Protein backbone atom coordinates (compact mmCIF):
# COMPACT_ATOMS: atom_id res chain seq x y z
CA UNK A 1 0.00 0.00 0.00
CA UNK A 2 2.77 2.33 1.06
CA UNK A 3 4.81 1.55 -2.03
CA UNK A 4 1.76 2.16 -4.19
CA UNK A 5 1.16 5.58 -2.67
CA UNK A 6 4.88 6.42 -2.95
CA UNK A 7 4.79 5.42 -6.57
CA UNK A 8 1.71 7.54 -7.06
CA UNK A 9 3.46 10.46 -5.43
CA UNK A 10 6.50 10.02 -7.65
CA UNK A 11 4.35 9.90 -10.76
CA UNK A 12 2.38 12.92 -9.63
CA UNK A 13 5.56 14.88 -8.98
CA UNK A 14 6.92 13.92 -12.37
CA UNK A 15 3.70 15.00 -13.99
CA UNK A 16 3.79 18.30 -12.13
CA UNK A 17 7.38 19.02 -13.06
CA UNK A 18 6.44 18.50 -16.71
CA UNK A 19 3.97 21.35 -16.34
CA UNK A 20 4.78 24.86 -15.30
CA UNK A 21 4.17 24.95 -11.56
CA UNK A 22 1.72 25.62 -10.03
CA UNK A 23 -0.61 23.09 -11.68
CA UNK A 24 -2.97 24.77 -14.13
CA UNK A 25 -6.74 24.38 -14.02
CA UNK A 26 -8.25 22.26 -16.80
CA UNK A 27 -8.01 23.78 -20.26
CA UNK A 28 -11.23 25.50 -21.37
CA UNK A 29 -13.26 23.50 -23.88
CA UNK A 30 -13.05 26.35 -26.41
CA UNK A 31 -9.26 26.62 -26.26
CA UNK A 32 -7.23 25.96 -29.41
CA UNK A 33 -4.70 24.34 -27.07
CA UNK A 34 -7.01 21.33 -26.96
CA UNK A 35 -5.02 20.52 -30.08
CA UNK A 36 -2.21 18.00 -29.63
CA UNK A 37 -0.21 19.57 -32.48
CA UNK A 38 3.55 19.81 -32.03
CA UNK A 39 5.58 22.72 -33.41
CA UNK A 40 9.28 23.07 -34.19
CA UNK A 41 10.81 26.53 -33.82
CA UNK A 42 13.78 28.29 -35.43
CA UNK A 43 16.12 26.74 -32.83
CA UNK A 44 14.88 23.24 -33.79
CA UNK A 45 13.16 23.07 -30.42
CA UNK A 46 10.09 20.83 -30.62
CA UNK A 47 7.21 21.69 -28.31
CA UNK A 48 3.48 21.24 -27.91
CA UNK A 49 1.50 24.20 -29.28
CA UNK A 50 -0.34 24.11 -25.94
CA UNK A 51 2.92 25.00 -24.16
CA UNK A 52 2.14 28.58 -25.20
CA UNK A 53 -0.56 28.54 -22.56
CA UNK A 54 0.03 31.10 -19.82
CA UNK A 55 0.68 34.14 -22.01
CA UNK A 56 -1.64 35.87 -24.47
CA UNK A 57 -0.49 35.26 -28.05
CA UNK A 58 -0.83 37.06 -31.31
CA UNK A 59 -1.04 34.23 -33.86
CA UNK A 60 -0.96 34.09 -37.62
CA UNK A 61 -0.15 31.63 -40.37
CA UNK A 62 2.39 32.48 -43.04
CA UNK A 63 5.15 31.00 -45.20
CA UNK A 64 8.62 32.41 -45.62
CA UNK A 65 8.76 32.45 -49.43
CA UNK A 66 5.68 34.71 -49.54
CA UNK A 67 6.63 38.03 -51.09
CA UNK A 68 3.62 40.23 -50.63
CA UNK A 69 1.19 39.63 -47.78
CA UNK A 70 3.25 37.67 -45.29
CA UNK A 71 5.77 40.50 -44.71
CA UNK A 72 2.74 42.60 -43.82
CA UNK A 73 1.79 40.05 -41.16
CA UNK A 74 5.18 40.63 -39.51
CA UNK A 75 4.70 44.40 -39.90
CA UNK A 76 1.37 44.06 -38.11
CA UNK A 77 2.89 42.18 -35.21
CA UNK A 78 5.64 44.78 -34.89
CA UNK A 79 3.16 47.66 -35.12
CA UNK A 80 1.06 46.19 -32.33
CA UNK A 81 4.14 45.66 -30.15
CA UNK A 82 5.25 49.25 -30.77
CA UNK A 83 1.85 50.48 -29.62
CA UNK A 84 2.40 48.79 -26.26
CA UNK A 85 4.56 49.87 -23.35
CA UNK A 86 7.70 47.86 -22.56
CA UNK A 87 5.90 46.39 -19.59
CA UNK A 88 2.80 45.47 -21.62
CA UNK A 89 4.99 43.84 -24.25
CA UNK A 90 6.21 41.24 -21.76
CA UNK A 91 2.66 39.95 -21.48
CA UNK A 92 2.17 39.28 -25.19
CA UNK A 93 3.87 36.67 -27.34
CA UNK A 94 3.74 36.40 -31.13
CA UNK A 95 3.45 32.95 -32.71
CA UNK A 96 3.75 32.70 -36.48
CA UNK A 97 2.95 29.21 -37.76
CA UNK A 98 4.08 28.10 -41.21
CA UNK A 99 1.67 26.80 -43.83
CA UNK A 100 4.67 25.33 -45.64
CA UNK A 101 6.48 22.97 -43.25
CA UNK A 102 8.19 21.22 -46.17
CA UNK A 103 10.25 24.32 -46.97
CA UNK A 104 10.16 26.30 -43.75
CA UNK A 105 12.82 24.35 -41.90
CA UNK A 106 14.31 25.72 -38.65
CA UNK A 107 17.22 27.19 -40.67
CA UNK A 108 14.85 29.00 -43.01
CA UNK A 109 12.82 30.27 -40.05
CA UNK A 110 15.99 31.42 -38.27
CA UNK A 111 17.05 33.37 -41.37
CA UNK A 112 13.70 35.12 -41.51
CA UNK A 113 13.94 35.95 -37.82
CA UNK A 114 17.35 37.55 -38.35
CA UNK A 115 16.32 39.40 -41.50
CA UNK A 116 13.20 40.80 -39.84
CA UNK A 117 14.99 41.40 -36.52
CA UNK A 118 12.43 39.54 -34.42
CA UNK A 119 13.20 39.24 -30.71
CA UNK A 120 13.22 35.50 -29.89
CA UNK A 121 12.10 36.31 -26.35
CA UNK A 122 8.71 37.34 -27.73
CA UNK A 123 8.49 35.98 -31.28
CA UNK A 124 8.18 32.32 -32.17
CA UNK A 125 8.41 31.23 -35.79
CA UNK A 126 7.38 27.60 -36.03
CA UNK A 127 6.61 24.81 -38.43
CA UNK A 128 3.94 22.23 -37.59
CA UNK A 129 4.11 18.60 -38.62
CA UNK A 130 2.76 18.48 -42.20
CA UNK A 131 -0.27 16.42 -41.17
CA UNK A 132 -1.32 19.03 -38.58
CA UNK A 133 -1.33 22.13 -40.81
CA UNK A 134 -4.96 21.84 -41.92
CA UNK A 135 -6.18 21.24 -38.35
CA UNK A 136 -4.26 24.21 -36.91
CA UNK A 137 -5.59 26.36 -39.74
CA UNK A 138 -9.08 25.11 -38.98
CA UNK A 139 -8.79 26.13 -35.33
CA UNK A 140 -7.62 29.60 -36.36
CA UNK A 141 -10.19 30.01 -39.14
CA UNK A 142 -7.50 30.10 -41.84
CA UNK A 143 -8.37 28.73 -45.29
CA UNK A 144 -5.51 27.93 -47.64
CA UNK A 145 -4.50 26.08 -50.76
CA UNK A 146 -1.04 25.24 -52.06
CA UNK A 147 -0.59 26.70 -55.54
CA UNK A 148 1.15 24.84 -58.33
CA UNK A 149 4.16 27.20 -58.25
CA UNK A 150 4.97 26.67 -54.55
CA UNK A 151 3.05 29.68 -53.28
CA UNK A 152 -0.02 29.51 -51.08
CA UNK A 153 -3.37 31.14 -51.41
CA UNK A 154 -4.45 31.77 -47.83
CA UNK A 155 -6.58 33.82 -45.49
CA UNK A 156 -4.54 36.63 -44.03
CA UNK A 157 -5.61 37.01 -40.45
CA UNK A 158 -4.23 37.98 -37.07
CA UNK A 159 -5.77 36.05 -34.22
CA UNK A 160 -5.53 37.09 -30.59
CA UNK A 161 -5.51 34.21 -28.10
CA UNK A 162 -5.90 34.81 -24.39
CA UNK A 163 -3.55 33.07 -21.96
CA UNK A 164 -5.76 29.96 -22.06
CA UNK A 165 -5.81 29.77 -25.86
CA UNK A 166 -9.31 31.12 -26.44
CA UNK A 167 -9.81 33.24 -29.56
CA UNK A 168 -10.54 36.74 -28.26
CA UNK A 169 -10.32 38.78 -31.44
CA UNK A 170 -9.31 38.53 -35.08
CA UNK A 171 -8.56 41.00 -37.81
CA UNK A 172 -7.92 40.75 -41.51
CA UNK A 173 -6.45 44.25 -41.57
CA UNK A 174 -2.71 43.76 -41.77
CA UNK A 175 0.16 46.19 -42.28
CA UNK A 176 2.04 48.89 -40.42
CA UNK A 177 -1.02 50.58 -38.91
CA UNK A 178 -2.69 48.45 -36.25
CA UNK A 179 -6.43 47.83 -36.50
CA UNK A 180 -7.68 50.01 -33.57
CA UNK A 181 -10.42 47.60 -32.51
CA UNK A 182 -7.99 44.71 -32.50
CA UNK A 183 -5.37 46.73 -30.61
CA UNK A 184 -7.97 47.59 -27.97
CA UNK A 185 -8.71 43.88 -27.60
CA UNK A 186 -4.98 43.21 -27.15
CA UNK A 187 -4.79 45.83 -24.39
CA UNK A 188 -7.85 44.43 -22.60
CA UNK A 189 -6.56 40.88 -22.83
CA UNK A 190 -3.08 41.56 -21.45
CA UNK A 191 -4.27 43.93 -18.75
CA UNK A 192 -3.13 42.58 -15.38
Amino acid at each position, binding site marked *: MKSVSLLFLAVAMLAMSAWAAPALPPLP*SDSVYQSTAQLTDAQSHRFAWSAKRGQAQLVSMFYTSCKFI*CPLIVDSGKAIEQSLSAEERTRLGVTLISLDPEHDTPDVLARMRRERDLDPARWTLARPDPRDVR*AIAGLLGVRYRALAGGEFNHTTVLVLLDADGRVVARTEKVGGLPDPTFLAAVRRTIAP
Partner: protein
Amino acid sequence: MAAAAAEGDGYVRVPGGNFTTALQYEDARLPLRIAPFAIMRRPVTNQEFLAFVMAHPQWRRDQVATVFAGPDYLAHWRGPARLASGEQGAQPVTRVSWFAASAYCQGQGARLPKWHEWELVAAADATRRDARSDPAWRERILGWYARPSSRALPSAGAQTPNAYGVKDLHGVVWEWTEDYSALLVAADNRNQGDPDRNRFCGGAALSIADRDNYAVLMRVAMLSSLNGSDTTMNLGFRCVREV
Protein backbone atom coordinates in the same frame (compact mmCIF):
# COMPACT_ATOMS: atom_id res chain seq x y z
CA MET B 1 -15.47 -1.36 -67.28
CA ALA B 2 -14.56 -3.82 -64.55
CA ALA B 3 -14.97 -2.68 -60.98
CA ALA B 4 -11.69 -2.14 -59.17
CA ALA B 5 -10.63 -4.94 -56.86
CA ALA B 6 -12.11 -4.67 -53.38
CA GLU B 7 -9.56 -4.72 -50.59
CA GLY B 8 -11.68 -6.87 -48.32
CA ASP B 9 -11.68 -4.34 -45.47
CA GLY B 10 -14.34 -2.00 -46.75
CA TYR B 11 -11.92 -0.07 -48.95
CA VAL B 12 -11.82 -0.14 -52.74
CA ARG B 13 -8.65 0.56 -54.68
CA VAL B 14 -8.89 3.39 -57.20
CA PRO B 15 -6.16 3.56 -59.84
CA GLY B 16 -6.07 7.36 -60.13
CA GLY B 17 -4.49 8.80 -63.26
CA ASN B 18 -5.18 11.91 -65.30
CA PHE B 19 -8.40 13.62 -64.32
CA THR B 20 -10.31 16.60 -65.68
CA THR B 21 -11.65 18.40 -62.63
CA ALA B 22 -14.65 20.68 -62.83
CA LEU B 23 -12.73 23.20 -60.72
CA GLN B 24 -10.58 25.61 -62.63
CA TYR B 25 -7.72 27.25 -60.77
CA GLU B 26 -5.69 29.94 -62.47
CA ASP B 27 -2.44 28.35 -61.36
CA ALA B 28 -3.35 24.73 -62.15
CA ARG B 29 -1.12 22.60 -64.30
CA LEU B 30 -3.28 20.35 -66.39
CA PRO B 31 -4.09 17.60 -66.65
CA LEU B 32 -4.35 16.84 -62.98
CA ARG B 33 -2.47 13.67 -61.98
CA ILE B 34 -4.10 11.75 -59.16
CA ALA B 35 -2.09 9.08 -57.35
CA PRO B 36 -3.76 5.72 -56.69
CA PHE B 37 -5.64 5.48 -53.39
CA ALA B 38 -8.13 3.24 -51.58
CA ILE B 39 -11.48 4.66 -50.53
CA MET B 40 -14.24 3.31 -48.29
CA ARG B 41 -16.93 1.61 -50.33
CA ARG B 42 -19.65 3.46 -48.41
CA PRO B 43 -19.84 6.29 -45.85
CA VAL B 44 -19.08 5.60 -42.18
CA THR B 45 -22.25 4.57 -40.29
CA ASN B 46 -23.61 5.64 -36.91
CA GLN B 47 -22.83 2.17 -35.55
CA GLU B 48 -19.21 2.46 -36.63
CA PHE B 49 -18.92 5.96 -35.24
CA LEU B 50 -20.48 4.82 -31.95
CA ALA B 51 -17.75 2.18 -31.63
CA PHE B 52 -15.19 4.94 -32.24
CA VAL B 53 -16.52 7.26 -29.52
CA MET B 54 -16.73 4.34 -27.07
CA ALA B 55 -13.04 3.65 -27.67
CA HIS B 56 -12.12 7.37 -27.69
CA PRO B 57 -14.42 9.05 -25.15
CA GLN B 58 -12.92 12.48 -25.87
CA TRP B 59 -15.11 12.35 -29.00
CA ARG B 60 -18.37 11.66 -27.12
CA ARG B 61 -20.78 14.54 -27.56
CA ASP B 62 -20.79 15.18 -23.79
CA GLN B 63 -16.99 15.25 -23.59
CA VAL B 64 -15.79 16.70 -26.87
CA ALA B 65 -13.98 20.05 -26.72
CA THR B 66 -16.14 22.76 -28.25
CA VAL B 67 -13.25 23.89 -30.47
CA PHE B 68 -13.57 20.55 -32.26
CA ALA B 69 -17.33 20.16 -32.57
CA GLY B 70 -20.32 22.50 -32.47
CA PRO B 71 -23.39 22.13 -30.23
CA ASP B 72 -25.28 19.83 -32.65
CA TYR B 73 -22.50 17.27 -32.85
CA LEU B 74 -24.16 13.80 -32.82
CA ALA B 75 -27.34 15.46 -31.55
CA HIS B 76 -29.48 12.87 -33.38
CA TRP B 77 -28.33 10.07 -31.06
CA ARG B 78 -30.44 9.19 -28.02
CA GLY B 79 -27.48 9.60 -25.68
CA PRO B 80 -23.76 10.28 -25.81
CA ALA B 81 -23.11 6.55 -26.21
CA ARG B 82 -26.48 5.39 -27.48
CA LEU B 83 -28.16 5.48 -30.87
CA ALA B 84 -31.79 6.48 -31.33
CA SER B 85 -32.79 3.24 -33.05
CA GLY B 86 -31.54 0.07 -34.69
CA GLU B 87 -32.12 1.52 -38.15
CA GLN B 88 -29.96 4.49 -37.26
CA GLY B 89 -26.98 2.19 -36.79
CA ALA B 90 -26.92 1.32 -40.48
CA GLN B 91 -27.40 4.89 -41.67
CA PRO B 92 -24.45 7.10 -42.55
CA VAL B 93 -23.27 9.09 -39.55
CA THR B 94 -23.99 12.81 -39.88
CA ARG B 95 -23.64 15.81 -37.57
CA VAL B 96 -19.91 15.13 -37.37
CA SER B 97 -17.32 17.88 -37.51
CA TRP B 98 -14.23 17.82 -39.73
CA PHE B 99 -12.08 17.37 -36.62
CA ALA B 100 -14.11 14.34 -35.49
CA ALA B 101 -14.17 12.82 -38.98
CA SER B 102 -10.41 13.33 -39.32
CA ALA B 103 -9.81 11.68 -35.94
CA TYR B 104 -11.93 8.70 -36.97
CA CYS B 105 -9.95 8.22 -40.18
CA GLN B 106 -6.62 8.64 -38.38
CA GLY B 107 -7.71 5.88 -36.03
CA GLN B 108 -8.03 3.67 -39.12
CA GLY B 109 -4.57 4.58 -40.39
CA ALA B 110 -6.42 6.59 -43.01
CA ARG B 111 -7.39 10.19 -43.74
CA LEU B 112 -10.28 12.08 -45.28
CA PRO B 113 -10.29 12.14 -49.10
CA LYS B 114 -8.86 15.13 -50.89
CA TRP B 115 -11.45 16.99 -52.92
CA HIS B 116 -10.03 15.74 -56.22
CA GLU B 117 -10.04 12.14 -55.04
CA TRP B 118 -13.69 12.43 -54.08
CA GLU B 119 -14.53 14.19 -57.34
CA LEU B 120 -12.75 11.51 -59.40
CA VAL B 121 -14.68 8.65 -57.80
CA ALA B 122 -17.95 10.61 -57.83
CA ALA B 123 -17.67 11.19 -61.60
CA ALA B 124 -18.60 7.56 -62.21
CA ASP B 125 -21.99 5.97 -62.70
CA ALA B 126 -22.69 2.25 -62.53
CA THR B 127 -20.90 1.46 -65.78
CA ARG B 128 -18.64 4.39 -66.69
CA ARG B 129 -15.78 5.93 -64.75
CA ASP B 130 -16.70 9.32 -66.15
CA ALA B 131 -20.42 9.82 -66.69
CA ARG B 132 -20.36 13.56 -66.19
CA SER B 133 -21.24 14.53 -69.73
CA ASP B 134 -24.43 12.44 -69.63
CA PRO B 135 -27.50 14.68 -69.08
CA ALA B 136 -29.47 11.77 -67.59
CA TRP B 137 -26.81 11.27 -64.88
CA ARG B 138 -26.93 14.97 -64.06
CA GLU B 139 -30.72 14.89 -63.83
CA ARG B 140 -30.63 12.07 -61.31
CA ILE B 141 -28.25 14.02 -59.09
CA LEU B 142 -30.36 17.14 -59.32
CA GLY B 143 -33.36 15.07 -58.30
CA TRP B 144 -31.62 14.25 -55.04
CA TYR B 145 -30.86 17.90 -54.29
CA ALA B 146 -34.55 18.69 -54.79
CA ARG B 147 -35.59 16.13 -52.17
CA PRO B 148 -36.46 17.49 -48.71
CA SER B 149 -33.59 16.91 -46.33
CA SER B 150 -35.92 16.05 -43.47
CA ARG B 151 -36.62 12.61 -44.97
CA ALA B 152 -34.98 9.70 -43.12
CA LEU B 153 -31.60 8.68 -44.49
CA PRO B 154 -31.31 5.36 -46.30
CA SER B 155 -28.93 2.71 -44.98
CA ALA B 156 -25.32 3.17 -46.04
CA GLY B 157 -24.26 0.89 -48.87
CA ALA B 158 -27.76 0.25 -50.26
CA GLN B 159 -26.99 1.80 -53.64
CA THR B 160 -25.70 0.04 -56.71
CA PRO B 161 -21.91 0.39 -56.74
CA ASN B 162 -20.41 2.70 -59.32
CA ALA B 163 -17.80 1.65 -61.87
CA TYR B 164 -15.10 1.74 -59.16
CA GLY B 165 -17.20 -0.36 -56.78
CA VAL B 166 -17.95 2.65 -54.56
CA LYS B 167 -21.46 3.44 -53.28
CA ASP B 168 -23.50 6.37 -52.01
CA LEU B 169 -21.43 9.21 -53.50
CA HIS B 170 -24.61 10.93 -54.61
CA GLY B 171 -28.08 10.80 -53.19
CA VAL B 172 -27.37 9.97 -49.56
CA VAL B 173 -25.25 12.50 -47.64
CA TRP B 174 -22.75 15.28 -48.23
CA GLU B 175 -19.20 14.33 -47.34
CA TRP B 176 -16.27 16.10 -45.72
CA THR B 177 -13.00 16.34 -47.60
CA GLU B 178 -9.59 16.71 -46.00
CA ASP B 179 -9.02 19.97 -47.86
CA TYR B 180 -12.49 21.48 -47.39
CA SER B 181 -10.81 24.74 -46.38
CA ALA B 182 -8.80 24.88 -49.61
CA LEU B 183 -11.96 25.65 -51.57
CA LEU B 184 -11.72 29.41 -51.55
CA VAL B 185 -14.28 29.96 -54.26
CA ALA B 186 -17.05 31.76 -52.41
CA ALA B 187 -15.09 34.54 -50.79
CA ASP B 188 -12.75 34.93 -53.75
CA ASN B 189 -15.58 35.40 -56.20
CA ARG B 190 -17.53 37.72 -53.94
CA ASN B 191 -14.49 39.87 -53.42
CA GLN B 192 -13.34 40.29 -56.97
CA GLY B 193 -12.36 43.89 -57.50
CA ASP B 194 -12.96 44.48 -53.81
CA PRO B 195 -10.41 46.25 -51.60
CA ASP B 196 -10.77 43.23 -49.32
CA ARG B 197 -8.98 41.02 -51.83
CA ASN B 198 -5.91 40.99 -49.57
CA ARG B 199 -7.83 38.47 -47.56
CA PHE B 200 -6.17 35.80 -49.66
CA CYS B 201 -2.47 35.94 -50.20
CA GLY B 202 -1.69 35.22 -53.84
CA GLY B 203 -4.76 35.71 -55.93
CA ALA B 204 -5.06 32.48 -57.90
CA ALA B 205 -8.82 32.44 -58.09
CA LEU B 206 -10.97 29.38 -58.47
CA SER B 207 -13.75 29.21 -60.98
CA ILE B 208 -15.94 26.39 -62.15
CA ALA B 209 -14.98 25.09 -65.57
CA ASP B 210 -18.12 23.04 -65.93
CA ARG B 211 -21.03 25.19 -64.84
CA ASP B 212 -23.63 22.55 -65.58
CA ASN B 213 -22.07 20.13 -63.14
CA TYR B 214 -24.36 20.82 -60.20
CA ALA B 215 -23.05 17.90 -58.22
CA VAL B 216 -19.73 19.68 -58.04
CA LEU B 217 -21.05 23.24 -57.82
CA MET B 218 -23.24 22.51 -54.83
CA ARG B 219 -20.61 20.47 -53.00
CA VAL B 220 -18.02 23.19 -53.46
CA ALA B 221 -20.43 25.90 -52.33
CA MET B 222 -21.32 23.88 -49.25
CA LEU B 223 -17.79 22.84 -48.27
CA SER B 224 -16.37 26.31 -48.85
CA SER B 225 -18.88 27.74 -46.37
CA LEU B 226 -17.96 25.43 -43.49
CA ASN B 227 -15.68 25.71 -40.50
CA GLY B 228 -13.94 22.64 -39.13
CA SER B 229 -16.14 22.43 -36.03
CA ASP B 230 -19.40 22.74 -38.00
CA THR B 231 -21.86 19.89 -38.25
CA THR B 232 -25.00 19.51 -40.34
CA MET B 233 -27.78 16.95 -40.41
CA ASN B 234 -26.74 15.78 -43.90
CA LEU B 235 -22.96 15.93 -43.71
CA GLY B 236 -21.03 12.70 -43.17
CA PHE B 237 -17.74 11.29 -44.40
CA ARG B 238 -15.72 8.34 -45.60
CA CYS B 239 -11.98 7.71 -45.34
CA VAL B 240 -9.15 7.16 -47.81
CA ARG B 241 -5.92 5.20 -47.46
CA GLU B 242 -2.72 5.75 -49.35
CA VAL B 243 -1.71 2.71 -51.39
